[in-house]
């Protein structure tokens, strides 16, 4: 356990329980994993605290549960706080191959910048599915310049994660301006939420705004993300007709 995450000790306990459910899956399927044609390479980018890591982790877990081999890469070189780094071990227990620093391996984290691991630079040469968690904003999007083969990789899909409860990306106009600055974007993800206060109205409000953005930029909305706590309501698509994907919130447990 990461020393600095003491404050979230109780949350971690919950997470371990969650992990043990997945071990069941691993025990039974570990040797059935096979290469699936048409591999998936996706990168999650967007505004600070928009939910990039959360959606990247959920995607990796989802693919793993389908029996696919997945590599999840922490390419957040911008902000060393909320990254998937503290979750590395738990995700590895699920059978996901995680490329990320461990806090203790780093020196001067948050003070001297983050260093690219050699495996990160060459990650697109790997086989099977690859999910990239990219740092925030335009600086984060520049990370693609550091990855060998990213510029001309035809399999790579880049998704911009947007939470319209964040004031910098609250209006159609601001989001359009923001997404345009990020460079190549293949899809939008509506990750609108207000933490524990999230209700469907808030999510639908976001869906409406992002659907406008989608029309204006001619970029499809891939899905609307909703906390799995809302799953009981049985909503499969939002009012814009976009599929709803229920996600587990891992990130509140990952501080440093």
């Amino acid at each position, binding site marked *: 356990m990461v020393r600095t995450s003491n404050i979230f000790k*109780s949350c971690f306990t919950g997470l371990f329980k969650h992990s043990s459910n997945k071990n069941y899956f691993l025990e039974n399927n570990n040797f059935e994993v096979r290469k699936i044609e048409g591999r998936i390479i996706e990168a999650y980018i967007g505004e600070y605290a928009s939910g990039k890591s959360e959606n990247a982790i959920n995607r990796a877990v989802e693919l793993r549960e389908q029996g696919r081999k997945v590599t999840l890469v922490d390419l957040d070189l911008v902000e060393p706080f909320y990254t998937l780094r503290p979750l590395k071990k738990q995700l590895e227990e699920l059978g996901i191959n995680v490329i990320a620093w461990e806090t203790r391996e780093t020196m001067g984290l948050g003070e001297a910048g983050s260093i690219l691991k050699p495996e990160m630079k060459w990650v697109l040469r790997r086989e099977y599915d690859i999910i990239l968690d990219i740092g925030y904003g335009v600086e984060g999007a520049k990370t693609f310049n550091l990855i060998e083969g990213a510029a001309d990789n035809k399999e790579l899909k880049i998704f911009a994660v947007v939470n319209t409860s964040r004031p910098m990306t609250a209006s159609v106009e601001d989001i359009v301006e923001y997404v345009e600055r990020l460079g190549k974007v293949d899809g939008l993800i509506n990750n609108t939420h207000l933490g524990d206060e999230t209700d469907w109205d808030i999510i639908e409000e976001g869906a409406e705004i992002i659907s406008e953005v989608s029309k204006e930029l001619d970029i499809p909305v891939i899905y609307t993300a909703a906390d799995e706590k809302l799953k009981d309501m049985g909503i499969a698509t939002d009012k814009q007709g976009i599929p709803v994907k229920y996600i587990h919130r891992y990130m509140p447990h990952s501080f*440093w």
Partner: protein
Amino acid sequence: MTEKPIQGEKRVFMTGNEVVAWAALAANAEIMYGYPITPQNEIMHYWTRLAPKHGRKFLQTEDEISAGFTTVGGVLAGRRSFTATAGPGNTLMQEALSMAEMMRIPIVQVVTQRGGPSTATVIYSQQEVTMTCFGGNGEGARIVYSTSTHQELYDYTIKAFNTAWKYRFPTHVLGDGYQSKMRESLTMYDPEARGIDMVPTEPYVGNEGTPGVDRDPNHLRNTYNTEDELYDVVTNLMSDWEKYAPEIAEYQEYDVEDADVLIIAHGVVTRAAQAAINELRAQGKKVGHFRPVTLRPIAEEQLRKRVEQAKSVLVVESAYGQLRKILDNALYGLTTPITNFFKPGEGVTADEVVEEVNKLL
């Protein structure tokens, strides 16, 4: 002037550093001076993204010594100015803050505490209490608000500008690295829509008219020739400080009326203390919590009253006794036993507080 950055009210989801930038914007802050340091950086990042859209300004200085003095300069020019820093940056800023104390310059400084001493960690602590309250070569004529939630970061950043300009003491919003990076929801509002008027600013220098003829001269000094002159200046400064301290001091109390054990904690640690008393009260245990909101000045009278009522006091902080020193000074003469739970540079959980309280029951 461009339109108001926040119209009416809006429920939002943000990190603490962003909250500070938005609050400064809503408070009509005109300029931020700063130098990068973790965990403060996004205050600058967001201010520099927002400022051009709203006709505000930013100057990145060469270091925190300069950031402190340029903030003083901004105020002297009559601008609602602020700066933000942490740890070693706060250390470097003390000379300018000391000057602001001496000259009654209402600068606002936001501190996102990181580990100490020295460079330590970029993460979290409550180890900048002593420095923020009493740093520099002065008497501590400073106002320090210790926040615990994003809503408070918003409220007290706005309030800090008004307190500073009303009383003309340097004013500090004391956050920490956890609050800086945490994500939670809050309501942002236009202060005016809530009936909060921003105290008007005025220049200290360059006023119209001939000094001594049309108006009194602005006698701005931080240097004096004799002991007697300095004695008068500091005596007057501290007399004002003592006069205003009771109306500036703020505190919060939770279940204190019949508390046998009183937990004292400030800043983000109050969240652990509050969760702990909820749990302990549910078990029928008589435990209360006193939280100083201003660490300087401290709400002495109320604090003494509650400590005197209690059978035992537990002081909880993410430092090695920096809050305890302030408390000891305020509680001198009282005999209620005090136990320490010090975790310098580390977060405190509710479970830990419960465990410590149970040892005292």
